[in-house]
């Protein structure tokens, strides 16, 4: 079943993104929001682990990105910017939501 995984913590502070990536299956979606948005940025020590997830589609919450002053051109290739409406939409169109709190 298609799952929307959500990660709201910085990958440099907590291990939740790493655990999410270790369990997310091909075809699932991962939404990075709140401090989780730092996981979507290019050139970090965690970036390779994110880009290695070929079968997973990544989204990042735009309002959280802007709040933190991270411009969209800093995002890893293939990461799509979502707003809250899109977050709702992802939750609806996937079969369930798994929160990696």
């Amino acid at each position, binding site marked *: 079943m298609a799952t929307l995984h959500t990660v709201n913590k910085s990958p440099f502070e907590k291990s939740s993104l790493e655990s999410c990536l270790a369990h997310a299956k091909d075809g699932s979606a991962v939404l990075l929001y709140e*401090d989780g948005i730092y996981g979507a940025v290019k050139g970090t020590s965690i970036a390779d682990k994110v880009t290695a997830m070929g079968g997973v589609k990544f989204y990042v919450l735009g309002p959280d990105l802007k709040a933190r002053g991270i411009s969209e051109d800093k995002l890893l290739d293939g990461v799509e910017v979502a707003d*809250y*409406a899109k*977050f*709702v939409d992802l*939750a609806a169109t996937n079969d369930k*939501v798994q*929160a990696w*709190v």
Partner: protein
Amino acid sequence: MKFAIQVNEGPYQHQATDSAYQFTKAALEAGHEIMRVFFYHDGVNNGTNLTTPPQDDRNIVNRWSELAKKHDLDLVVCVAAAQRRGIVDEGEMQRNGKSAENIADGFRISGLGQLIEAGIQSERLVVFGD
């Protein structure tokens, strides 16, 4: 679609309740149903009517109360978690001999069964936490 929301953290300390609010608002705007917002753990602290946040910041508690009024939302505070943290309605005040009640408008205190029921009856459960 019918959503249920779970909030695990209190106001201001963590963004969880902000994100839950924005999600809930966006879902309602998209025409979805929010069958319940369940406040658990420190999330129960969203249900106090005693906050006075700075005037240049959002008022998290009032914002929930107003959204509930506008959309007839069911904002449920877990009773067991509320007893540990000091969120009290009139019934709890009398039952536990407390000096005051502090439950905010639009919130009600109820049992954990309301969370399970939300998991059963909603089509999607979305959890916001630390």
